[in-house]
């Protein structure tokens, strides 16, 4: 077995492993797409401002609620919202149009961390 063949084999094996990991799919990938849809289309026109729903599982706020809370705080273009344990990791633009990476408490909606993401 020549070294070039081993190199090719390693690249092939690597791409299969990474593809497998991608296909095995973290749960957040799905919730991530849901979040994009939720963030882009506000189809909730009932005008009920207090309807901060709880996620089905435990006390976590759902992604839609967190998205809405953030836009009320002036964040826009929320393009990623991923659940990580009891927190949400969010990418959004602030009022000045800068990309921020936020960590939001999944229960209270409080912004725990807000850092530059450029």
């Amino acid at each position, binding site marked *: 077995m020549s070294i*070039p063949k081993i190199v*090719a084999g390693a*690249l092939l094996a690597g*791409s299969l492993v990474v*593809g497998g990991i991608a296909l095995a*799919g973290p749960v*957040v990938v799905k919730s991530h797409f849901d979040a*994009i849809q939720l963030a882009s289309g506000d189809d909730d026109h009932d005008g009920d401002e207090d309807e901060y729903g709880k996620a089905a599982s435990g006390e976590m706020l759902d992604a839609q609620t967190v998205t809405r809370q953030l836009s009320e705080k002036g964040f826009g273009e929320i*393009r990623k919202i991923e659940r*990580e344990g009891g927190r949400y990791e969010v990418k959004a633009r602030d009022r000045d149009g800068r990309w921020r990476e936020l960590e939001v408490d999944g229960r209270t909606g409080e912004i725990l961390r807000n850092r530059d993401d450029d």
Partner: protein
Amino acid sequence: MSGFDVAAGSRSEPKQAPPTVKVWDPLVRVLHWSLATAFALAFATGESIESLHLLAGYAVLVIVGLRALWGLVGTPHARFDDFVPNLGKLLAYVRDLAAGRAERYVGHNPAGGAMVVLLLAILLGTAASGVLTLYGGDAFEELHEGFANANLALVLVHIAGVLVSSRLHRENLVRAMITGHKRA
């Protein structure tokens, strides 16, 4: 017509286009340009359009896998055995290149071959770190951006290498990657 050609070209070297040889098979060319497109798309959409970015990233992953497979079972010049150099060959070639007397290769020259492997490896690393960001974690995002920037730098070096090599041997290597043909 053919009789005329035979008579005209009998002794003096023919004025017609020099003979060409088929070097890059269709799959090599399609994978090359689709990989370039997918990387450009992924790079351009990295900070904005998430779904398109994911699609482009997965395309990169699939293309790298196919190219590696083709490197094992493909046509002669597509195989890694044809162009992946050992360190001695690579250094010798780079030395010759610096002195402006690098040998011409019909397939990839040693530096080009090393670049193919490096690009594929870094692209795989970029895709892998990208997939890992889906599982969360700042560290993976930093890593992913690092890989992506290294990738861009490599692409620029790759393009520079193609231009230098084309100039040195007075041939159009970009066209060769489109048509598959090179001067014999």
